[in-house]
């Protein structure tokens, strides 16, 4: 498994501002992902954070709104830009660990409320 931490764990932000969420993992991993979980909903993949290159975004998500950095194999950031109340969600990073069985583990999440 992997030990994953996220900062902040929660935040309350004003409309129009931006928040950067950090994800740190305790070992080098090839693949990191960012997901969103809207209140009472399931998880939706935002993007794959690629080390050394631009993130790969899923349909409905764009770089201007959710810029992502991945400077090395243990760290990534997701920024939620120009926030609106509709961005209120839990944002989770996940990592793919390799071994006998590749398995995907999730961080503790960042609970974002936009007023």
């Amino acid at each position, binding site marked *: *498994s992997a030990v994953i931490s996220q900062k902040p764990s929660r935040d309350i932000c004003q409309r129009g501002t931006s928040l950067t969420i950090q994800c740190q993992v305790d070992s080098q991993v090839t*693949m990191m*992902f960012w997901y969103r979980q809207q209140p009472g*909903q*399931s*998880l*939706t*993949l935002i993007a*794959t954070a690629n080390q050394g290159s631009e993130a790969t975004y*899923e349909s409905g998500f764009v770089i201007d709104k959710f810029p992502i950095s991945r400077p090395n194999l243990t760290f990534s950031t997701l920024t939620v830009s120009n926030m609106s109340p509709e961005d209120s969600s839990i944002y*989770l990073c*996940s990592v*793919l660990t390799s071994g006998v*069985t*590749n*398995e*995907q*583990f*999730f*961080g*503790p*999440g960042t*609970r974002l409320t936009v007023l």
Partner: protein
Amino acid sequence: ELKVEQNPLFLSMQEEKNYTIYCNYSTTSDRLYWYRQDPGKSLESLFVLLSNGAVKQEGRLMASLDTKARLSTLHITAAVHDLSATYFCAVDMPTTQGGSEKLVFGKGTKLTVNP
């Protein structure tokens, strides 16, 4: 487009009873996960199923995979209150090169076990 359907979405059980949660998916995939989420918490990995006929058991939970039917089941035996949580299945999004490690989630099954 890969679609993942879980049912039931809500399940209220009595302790000591047995029940099954179903997860159907629409296209061939190499990997299926079951996760547990407690309120306000992140996702805990329960099982990863890789091949047709795979069966895994942990305590009162048993997961199986039928890739031909595109169906996975999560069977609960002799439920106890501690199993109350939301359970998600997630399927690896396929590509022409094989698995992508991008997960598509079902809507989740909220399980309540009553004493």
